[in-house]
């Protein structure tokens, strides 16, 4: 991108003519700017002036949103750039979808467009269709897609069927996002993953259901599995996770004893949200849930939400002693028995956020037995309690933490807005009288912003 002599001269004048700058940019910079626009808008810039008339044709990215087949074909014919860097095709507007579906040749069209991009060394390919409810989901993907050597990022949303007997070779694929795609058979997913030797980022939102979901990759660092997302969650009767290099794990699922996870030695961050399903085996469930937690034991930041999960039975929980020695930040939504377990087992915990999901049968807070846990003596700095309703056992928790946390800097207590000012005052009075183990500790007390409680599910 050489700067010409003309550019240099105009730069010297620029203080007097401040507006004339961008017109001196080289074409390569202008097409770079245009490459961030949806194709429809970059084509529209041809109206600006002679110089702009064909600039759009040299933009390496093709981004189509709700554009008609005719328009897409026109662009592909008229563009002058040989390669395609990014190819995005999304269709999230019902009106356009209707127009688009005039004939049975639809599927063939997609195949031609995808092939067009693959043949031009596409690096980023996004296909997003909101029409997942329809037979459009069954859209065939051309075989050449699965051996695209240049592809770095592939996102398929609500479209396409992953075939089971296809040669997969994605030597450069780093990012793979599969949202609501279909699998010809359960083996299609492991087959696909086996062809991705450098994959780092994998996201799977499941719909429809699967019998056996096998997520195996030795290279994946970031793994997101969402099986219960709003409205269209799919279920896997059996889920096996074998991803030894994972550093970031995010999981939303119905917990069953059929979830198995291999070692995660590199794990640093985990966000786990388990929901319950109606038929579960109590004892089996508790054991396998804790077995699953064991695989997270190296984590540094952990967010656990199993407020909608059936409780873990007492005898199984009391025998659980797994140490979380790297854990420094913990956010828990569960019943309070697990809170004392984590205080006991996370010696280096610095920041704790605890939201109790009250269950009638287990409201009793039991202090960790014997000596005060190590994290309270030397690590725990911040405690957040975002949903304190003024119940007896809650005061016991607050009292215990304030008394025993020797280096606590701050405790934030929030209560529901529905509390009367009288109840509020009583709570405040009571808490302010509690003995504090840390002189430096400040207690913040206030009505919670409604957002805290409006957890979107």
């Amino acid at each position, binding site marked *: 991108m050489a700067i010409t002599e003309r*550019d240099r001269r105009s*730069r010297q004048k620029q203080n007097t003519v401040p*507006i004339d700058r*961008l017109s001196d*940019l080289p074409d390569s910079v202008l097409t770079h*700017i*245009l490459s961030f626009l949806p194709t429809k*808008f970059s084509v529209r810039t041809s109206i600006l*002036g002679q110089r702009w008339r064909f600039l759009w044709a040299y933009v390496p990215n093709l981004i189509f949103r709700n554009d008609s087949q*005719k328009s897409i074909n026109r662009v592909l014919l008229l563009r002058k750039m040989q390669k395609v860097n990014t190819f995005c095709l999304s269709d999230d507007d019902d009106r356009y979808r209707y127009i688009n579906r005039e004939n049975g040749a639809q599927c063939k069209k997609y195949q031609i467009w995808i092939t067009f991009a693959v043949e031009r060394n596409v690096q980023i390919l996004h296909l997003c269709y909101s029409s997942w409810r329809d037979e459009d989901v069954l859209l065939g993907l051309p075989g050449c897609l699965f051996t695209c050597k240049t592809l770095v990022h592939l996102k398929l949303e609500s479209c396409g069927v992953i075939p089971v007997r296809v040669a997969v070779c994605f030597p450069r694929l780093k990012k793979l996002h599969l949202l609501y795609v279909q699998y010809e058979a359960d083996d299609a997913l492991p087959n696909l993953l086996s062809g991705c030797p450098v994959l780092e980022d994998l996201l799977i939102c499941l719909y429809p259901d699967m019998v056996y979901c096998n997520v195996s990759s030795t290279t994946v660092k970031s793994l997101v599995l969402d099986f219960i997302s709003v409205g269209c969650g799919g279920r896997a009767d059996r889920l096996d996770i074998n991803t030894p290099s994972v550093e970031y794990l995010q999981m939303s699922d119905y917990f069953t004893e059929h979830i198995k996870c291999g070692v995660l030695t590199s794990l640093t961050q985990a966000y786990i949200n388990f929901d319950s399903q109606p038929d579960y085996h109590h004892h089996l469930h508790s054991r396998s849930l804790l077995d699953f937690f064991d695989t997270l034991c190296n984590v540094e930041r952990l967010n656990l939400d199993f407020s909608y999960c059936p409780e873990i039975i007492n005898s199984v929980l009391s025998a659980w002693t797994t140490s979380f020695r790297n854990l420094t930040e913990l956010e828990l939504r569960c019943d309070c028995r697990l809170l004392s377990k984590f205080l006991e087992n996370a010696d280096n915990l610095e920041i704790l956020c605890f939201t109790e999901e009250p269950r009638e049968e287990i409201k009793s807070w039991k202090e960790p037995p014997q000596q005060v846990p190590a994290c309270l003596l030397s690590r725990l700095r911040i405690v957040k309690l975002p949903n304190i309703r003024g119940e007896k056992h809650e005061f016991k928790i607050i009292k215990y933490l304030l008394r025993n946390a020797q280096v606590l800097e701050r405790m934030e207590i929030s209560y529901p807005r529905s509390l009367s000012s009288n109840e509020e005052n009583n709570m405040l009075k009571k808490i302010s009288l509690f003995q504090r183990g840390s002189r430096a500790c400040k207690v913040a007390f206030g009505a919670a912003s409604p957002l805290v409680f409006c957890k979107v599910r």
Partner: protein
Amino acid sequence: MAAETGTPTTLTLKSNDDELFSVAESAAILSVTIRNMVEDGCAGGVIPLDNVDGKTLASVITYMNGISAIPADEEKKKSYRDKFLSDKDFETLADMVLAANYLNMSCLMDAVSAKIAQVMEKKSVGWVRRKFGIENDYTPEEEAAVKEEHKWTFEGVETDDDN
């Protein structure tokens, strides 16, 4: 680069209006242009940057320092970039894209280009022509022909307003 002892870790950059700036070498080499000069051994004294004025260079250096202080975390880098660009007006963005292009800083170039594209997308033809300093050199007939040729891109667009 800085392997020899005595190699300065701070560089002095000079803008085209003769302002001098000190910047850590580790931050400055985000610019491939500067990195090449350092590697070629031209960074002993003052590095002149003929295509960047003082105001823009100060801004670019703020960015260099800010982004290089963030460890390898793409999310955090992205939110820093978003915040950094959030209060910049179109003229500043125009200066930044020129500077990023000259300094060969791909991450800043991408972020600023995306921001300019985002601003352009919502604006009328008249606004873009004015801000880009584009002279409309079409005859009315030619302009009508171009519009007809890419009719589908003008669906639902009002082109005459100045906003």
